[in-house]
């Protein structure tokens, strides 16, 4: 059974987080989910448009929502920020007034609002088909945007478990830890690197204390910050799609594991998750 | 139109929950449009369709029937009868040319003053949107 979704990679996945894009495409292809890229997609609005007024903050995500609506498919974006924008925008566009304003700005009807999905929600529904046993202790790190605000999240905002459930299904051992949803410092990486360093290091230290050998994330910003400010020890930070890719027997090259600052390969080799390359 | 310019609303409120809820709105000074005329009935299940139809005949633009929340009826099950009765009456109203949105059923408990005042305000908005009776367009 082939399932189709409208796929919105977003800017990060075309640049700094290309490995997230590539691993997502490969994993979903292997799992029989067809990703049809949204044609002519534009920026989701990300973190800067809220400050620039309601109109543009709704019009930008509405563009992709409209496209998905025309494709007749749910809209899926791996980037936590894009996901959050689409979800919140679709909630706001349910109000006729906001919708009318936005349609006027777009000059187009949005049509029936598509459902908005994050890859985690799709993975949670798919039965795992691991070929390589993932004998590794994993800290699932959700960061802020996947579960907050509650209206946009798809799990408990303080103690989410969806990623833990998914990695456990694929054979890894999720650790129990308390910093799943702490802030990594996010977009302050350039303005306040000291703060980002403090926050990100603490997240990683907590993950290590809980016994994690690797941290999995589902957000490009989280990956970048944790990877950069690793603290005293080097703990690899992988996208969940990369970890699942390993379980599916994909090669490090196919999963672009070489793009991380902290090289995960020594650990993955020692764990027997990588035999070649 | 009411003398204040707004649509005319007749509210049949059960004595135990909704009338008390409307009292609570008063005690808490939660204002709502003055166009509603409240008639106290023992139970929402007491509201005979005749009373609804007579209210429209009298010139009401909307009829609000309010009772206890499901499961909370002072008489155990009167509100369930009201719910079923008005589910049947609404399409009939539509048939005779009175938009079914003009008959509204709400559950308002004795503590829900805010809910009552909001219900009246939103009903008024809906009736304004529908316009005067008999001008369906």
């Amino acid at each position, binding site marked *: 059974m082939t399932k189709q979704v409208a796929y919105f990679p977003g800017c990060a996945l075309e640049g700094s987080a290309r490995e997230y894009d590539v691993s997502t495409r490969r994993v979903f292809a292997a799992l029989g989910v067809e990703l049809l890229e949204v044609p002519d997609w534009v920026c989701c609005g990300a973190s800067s448009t809220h400050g620039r007024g309601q109109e543009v903050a709704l019009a930008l995500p509405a563009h992709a929502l409209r496209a998905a609506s025309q494709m007749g498919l749910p809209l899926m974006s791996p980037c936590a920020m894009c996901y959050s924008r689409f979800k919140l925008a679709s909630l706001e566009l349910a109000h006729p007034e906001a919708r009318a304003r936005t349609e006027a700005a777009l000059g187009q009807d949005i049509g029936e609002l598509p459902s908005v999905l994050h890859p985690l929600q799709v993975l949670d529904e798919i039965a795992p088909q691991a070929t390589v046993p993932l004998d590794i202790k994993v800290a699932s790190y959700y960061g802020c945007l996947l579960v907050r605000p*509650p209206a946009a999240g798809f799990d*408990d905002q*303080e*103690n989410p478990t969806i990623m833990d459930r998914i990695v456990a299904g694929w054979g890894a051992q999720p650790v*129990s*830890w*308390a*910093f799943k949803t*702490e802030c990594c410092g996010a977009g302050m990486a350039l303005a306040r690197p000291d703060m980002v360093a403090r926050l990100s290091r603490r997240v990683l230290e*907590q993950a290590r*204390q809980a016994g994690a050998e690797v941290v999995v994330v589902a957000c490009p910003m989280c990956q970048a910050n944790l990877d950069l400010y690793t603290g005293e020890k080097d703990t690899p930070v992988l996208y969940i799609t990369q970890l699942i890719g390993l379980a599916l027997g994909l090669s490090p090259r196919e999963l672009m594991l070489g793009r991380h600052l902290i090289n995960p390969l020594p650990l993955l080799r020692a764990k027997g998750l990588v035999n070649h390359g | 139109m*009411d*003398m*204040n310019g707004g649509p*005319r609303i*007749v509210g049949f409120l059960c*004595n*135990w929950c909704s*009338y*008390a809820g*409307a*009292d609570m*709105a*008063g*005690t808490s*000074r*939660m*204002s*709502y449009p*003055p166009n509603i*005329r*409240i*008639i*106290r*009935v*023992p*139970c929402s*299940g*007491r*509201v*005979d369709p*005749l*009373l609804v139809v*007579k*209210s429209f005949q*009298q*010139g*009401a633009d909307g009829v609000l029937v309010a009772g206890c929340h499901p*499961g*909370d009826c*002072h*008489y*155990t099950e*009167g509100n369930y*009868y009201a719910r079923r*009765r008005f589910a049947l009456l609404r399409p009939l109203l539509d048939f005779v040319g009175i938009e079914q949105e003009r008959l509204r059923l709400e559950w308002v*408990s*004795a*503590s829900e003053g805010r809910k009552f*005042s909001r219900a009246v305000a939103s009903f008024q908005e809906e009736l304004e949107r529908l316009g005067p009776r008999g001008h369906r367009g």
Partner: protein
Amino acid sequence: MVKVGVFLCHCGRNISEVVDVPRVAEAVRHLPGVTYVDENKYMCSEPGQAAIRQAITEHGLTRVVVASCSPRMHEITFRRAAAQAGLNPYLVEMANLREHCSWVHADDHEAATLKAIELVKKAVARISYNEPLTPQPIPMTRRALVIGGGIAGIQAALDIAAAGHQVTLVERESTIGGRMAQLDKTFPTLDCSSCILTPKMVEVAQNPNIELLTYSEVESVSGFVGSFEVQIRKRATLVDHVKCTGCGICWEKCPEKVPSEFDLARGKRSSIYIPFPQAVPVKPVVDQVHCRYIKYQEFEASGAEGKKPPQCRICEKLCPPQALAWDQEDEAVTEKFGAIVVATGYDPFDPTVYGEFGYGQYPDVITGLELERLLSASGPTEGHVLRPSDGTPPKTVVFLSCIGSRDEERGKAYCSQICCMYMAKHAIVLKEHDPEVQSYIFYIDNRAVGKGYEEFSRRAQEDAGAVYLRGRVAKVFPQDGKLVVMGEDSLIGRQVEIAADMVVLAAAVVPSRGADEVARMLNISYDSDHFLVEAHPKLRPVETHTDGVFLAGACVSPCDVPQSVSRGSAAAAKTLALLSKETLVGEPTTAVVDALRCSGCQLCLEVCPFNAISTQVVAGRTVASVNEGLCKGCGLCSAVCRPAAIGVKGSTHKQLLAEVASLWT
């Protein structure tokens, strides 16, 4: 020809500052039937009522309309005033100019005045169809039922019994005592909770006027004030409590130990047990879920293959009076009561919804009630406060307030009233147990509003050295064997982190499990949080809208011990006022059948929730007939009656249609 007197109330300025009362008076003066109009600053005052009485006499009024507040407030007052002047009280109507007009339309005086005129017109239109009604006397069963054996129910039962009336106290657990029995000490006096509670419990057991039914639940209630028929299910204890002497051999020797509910699973009990040593009655019950012999019997009955569970029966072998009664069954008894006190109490809020505090995940995160059990000398640790994780005494204890309280997002909007004070108490008592303990209390507002409470709270800070931090906690997480509490001190605007040995959550107070079911059985309402609703929050705080049903204790709203006791006594006083009468005056607003119009379709029989309608044969025709004792006047019958043969007195078609017909004319 009716002569209607209209009495307009200013209600001080509550009505008159919004509604132009003299203008209303002018507008209604010439309505058909109106022969007299008067205004008064306070109609409900004695001069106001006197004016009504006088006008009835002097002007020969046959109907009275009082335009003032809600009829739910003063209908009884004005009916009584009319009756004093010889007018049938049901010939009085009210127009609600305050709650439904001046208070909600204060921003538009003109609209409010016009509406007030309409409301009075509506009442005048209705009242010409009012008929004089005469209440039926209701015989009073001079016995009371108290549901719930916590401190509020105990107090109510004792007070009713002290006045010489019979009272039955039903408790679902195997002992009375309720939440108070679980407490170690009580604020602000630091009395030992059991020491002040157990004498009252014993008094309940010994008082000849009190019938104590523990391990029992109310299953159904029918009837009405004066004669409630209540079915009570006495659950099988499997112990003959007449033979049993409470010697204690059985529960000491029983080998099957399970988590104790009384100790909130922080300790163990046997599967034949009393919940705590001072239980009343001191008679054990067999827990049929865990008892080995019961499991054995179930295995035998199932005919399953394999290894048989042990027969056990150690309790039976050792019981000196041979009191075990394995084939005892649940027993349903039906008793009649004149009045009912509901004292179903509270449960602690389940803090697991706050994932960030790790309750249920980290063993050293406990609730305040669990700490009570650890502090109690009869608790699982015999009063030594030890960390559940490793059995060491905690030195740094952090308290988190408002866990579920004052949090509309994930908990309850209300304040749970008792938590600020019990956190202060815990800080003081912990310091007494171990001078090295340092307590930190994260609070939102420190609410210490009872007698001696503020002083007590200061004592926690000054004598026990508790550090009060104003702010919410973001997260609790384990680090190096401690629990790090990460929060905000909003007074200095800084984040704080405290490495704690134990974290205590002040869980909110929520209504006891099943209180809503009890409410439904009794036809009383509960609010969106499932607290039971009193007839008036200020002036009728223990009455309900069902006559003869009263509320006591925390089933109404969170409250502490002194308040529970007061509410228990208050409910008892209201009960006694009923029990002191031989007969009551019933509501005459019941259904009545016009046999000539009745077609005998019997739809009314089907819809009547109280089985108050039956059929009778009149002049050879089968027609409906109403039992006025059972009828509560809901009017469901009237709404389904096609030939309009059945009507509710006081809410007739004519009255309601007259109201409708008066609108916008």
